[in-house]
């Protein structure tokens, strides 16, 4: 049956990942390829993310040493922010992470400069809130947020502005009628691109679905985001065709029901593999 097949495949995948994780040094390219092709088993996800984001080095015998450094760095920054009263015991963890990130990037605002709502900070906080749901350990969580955000900007910063055009292209192939409708009602320009392509669906998808998308982003693809957006549009095709006000479209898409998001992500990854090819080399 389908489930047996999927279950069997899952076991095989888990075994091959375990083999990859036993290598010393770890082969980052193989690990990336694995994460591009298969969903990461949740028990290994955080570890693989930490390796792919460079929080842990490829050599497993350095992990204890480097992990110790990461922990000290975290504690040092946190302590200093407490002493300088940027944070206190009641500051939400994600706000603490933002201050820590700002301190490290040398953009911590001075006390006199009251910062208004800032888009970039809001994106950071949104990603941080989702990461907080995925990762239990606060030290791991801070490092994952920091390195995820950093890598995303460094690697994909130039591609992000082109993703809406790319989405339009694939929508024209899959559902030209919906594309026409969105254009005619001026909704196309008002799709929640920031939520999709800058926040990587943080605050849009529940964490259980989100981490399967982030597997792909962390292992090297931002294109997958386009296909998640595409599948969201396709699964609300009929509803969207009935909405003529652009604000209505945005409102729906910013608050999609959280029940069938797993199916949306599965379809998105399938069509991403279909259009962009499955990374094939050595696993």
């Amino acid at each position, binding site marked *: 049956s389908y489930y047996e097949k999927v279950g069997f495949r899952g076991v095989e995948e888990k075994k091959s990942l375990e083999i990859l994780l036993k290598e010393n040094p770890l082969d980052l390219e193989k690990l990336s390829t694995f994460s591009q092709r298969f969903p990461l088993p949740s028990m290994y996800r955080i570890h693989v993310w930490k390796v792919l984001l460079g929080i842990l080095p490829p050599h497993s015998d350095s992990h204890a040493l480097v992990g110790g450094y990461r922990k000290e760095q975290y504690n040092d920054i946190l*302590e200093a922010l407490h002493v300088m009263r940027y944070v206190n015991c009641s500051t939400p963890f994600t706000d603490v992470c933002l201050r820590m990130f700002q301190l490290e990037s040398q953009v911590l605002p001075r006390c006199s400069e009251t*910062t208004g709502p800032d888009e970039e900070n809001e994106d950071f906080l949104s990603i941080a809130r989702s990461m907080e749901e995925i990762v239990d350990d606060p030290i791991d969580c801070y490092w994952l947020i920091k390195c995820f955000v950093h890598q995303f900007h460094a690697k994909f910063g130039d591609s992000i502005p082109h993703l809406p055009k790319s989405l339009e292209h694939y929508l024209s192939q899959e559902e030209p009628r919906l594309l026409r409708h969105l254009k005619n009602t001026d909704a196309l320009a008002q799709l929640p691109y920031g939520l999709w392509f800058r926040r990587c669906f943080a605050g849009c998808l529940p964490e259980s679905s989100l981490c399967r998308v982030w597997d792909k982003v962390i292992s090297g693809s931002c294109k997958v985001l386009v296909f998640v957006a595409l599948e969201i549009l396709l699964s609300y095709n009929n509803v969207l065709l009935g909405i003529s006000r652009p604000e209505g479209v945005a409102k729906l898409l910013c608050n999609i029901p959280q029940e069938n998001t797993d199916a949306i992500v599965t379809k998105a990854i399938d069509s991403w593999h279909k259009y962009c090819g499955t990374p094939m080399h050595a696993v």
Partner: protein
Amino acid sequence: FLEDVKCQAKAELQSSDGRYQAQRRITQLLQTELLQLYSRVETEAPAGTASGSPPGGRADSYP
């Protein structure tokens, strides 16, 4: 030769560690200083007087 490379790496790591420890001691001194200064400012300007923003309230001003 390999031993040589390993020794060099170890020495570099040790010097990085030394720099870190030195900087950490400075930080701790400055932090102690800052804590003392805060408590002095707060003692001299008890609640009620408008002496700029109370440092304690600072975290509140962030979202």
